[in-house]
């Protein structure tokens, strides 16, 4: 039987090498592609018939849209609505990635530091660009808040810089840890189902309960990721 960590192994599906860099199309890339495409397909199917009073199918994407719209409005303010499409895309991509990983034989790309880390670093760069665009040189105040005496600058500037850089790290670690732990737990308990024979019903029931809990965690973690991205964007726009 395969080990609990084997499910996170990256396998090359289409090996590619450009100038010595490995840019192969892997199972992780495939799942990212499926996750992005499934969002587009589901939204396109649900919004096929557009009516003033939405039906069941139309109300699903509408309520998701409204939910994230309110999230941006409450955490960033009206100014943040300009960047709504970015937050909306990010949260849907992560939510579908988390949920997709729960299917048998699928791959959870959100359990990899490289994938989520790249998204978080991209979000951080986006926030910095937004902050610089809005406040120009005043953005540098983020590293030296008002009211702090200048002799303390050599201490405060590195601390504030690390504080800014650690934000995507904490964002990534939280999501990756939650996803990895959940899947490892599922796999370990599933291992007992066969080996315990008839008594395997107990871990089977336990696993079923964990699956339900994992669906909740998948959505919750995507929500937390979104809300924190909103807060960081709000910080870049309003802080000091």
């Amino acid at each position, binding site marked *: 039987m395969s080990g609990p960590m084997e499910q996170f192994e990256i396998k090359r599906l289409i090996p590619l090498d450009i100038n010595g860099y490995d840019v192969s199309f892997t199972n992780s890339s495939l799942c990212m592609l499926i996750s992005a495409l499934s969002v587009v397909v589901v939204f396109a199917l649900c919004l096929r018939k557009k009516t003033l009073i939405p039906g069941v199918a139309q109300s699903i994407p509408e309520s998701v849209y409204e939910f994230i719209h309110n999230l941006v409005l409450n955490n960033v303010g009206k100014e943040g609505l300009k960047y709504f499409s970015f937050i909306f895309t990010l949260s849907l991509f992560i939510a579908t990635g988390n949920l997709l990983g729960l299917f048998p034989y699928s791959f959870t790309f959100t359990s990899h530091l490289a994938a989520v880390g790249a998204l978080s670093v991209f979000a951080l760069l986006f926030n910095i660009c937004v902050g610089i665009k809005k406040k120009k040189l005043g953005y540098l105040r983020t590293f030296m808040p008002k009211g702090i005496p200048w002799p303390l600058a050599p201490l405060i500037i*590195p601390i504030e810089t690390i504080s800014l850089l650690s934000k995507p790290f*904490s964002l990534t670690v*939280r999501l990756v840890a939650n996803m990895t732990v959940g899947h490892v737990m599922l796999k370990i308990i599933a291992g007992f189902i066969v080996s315990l024979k008839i008594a395997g019903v107990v871990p089977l029931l336990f696993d079923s309960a964990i699956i339900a809990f994992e669906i909740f965690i998948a959505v919750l973690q995507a929500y937390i990721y979104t809300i924190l991205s909103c807060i960081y964007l709000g910080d870049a726009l309003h802080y000091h």
Partner: protein
Amino acid sequence: MQKIPEDIQALEKKIAAIKKKTSGEPETENKHTQFSHLAMGLRLGVELASGTIVGAAIGYMLDEMFDFQFVLLLIFTIFGGCAGMLNAYRYAKSVNDIGEK
């Protein structure tokens, strides 16, 4: 412009009246459940640790670049610890502010 039918206008008025009614209601006090306290604690821990790790990583990279052996690693780990504490403090403060409102 398309004219909105009368029954939909009436429905809109009804929705607006209900929204007005519910927006004035105070939020339920039981918002912070035990689970959210656990999440808060976990987040504080992650904030503390991530600051230190990022600080140490920056120190290590600078040491490798300028060949300072371990001096910058030491300094930046301390800075990272401070940054982690600062992040945790800011988060705790924001939770406190929401609680007081």
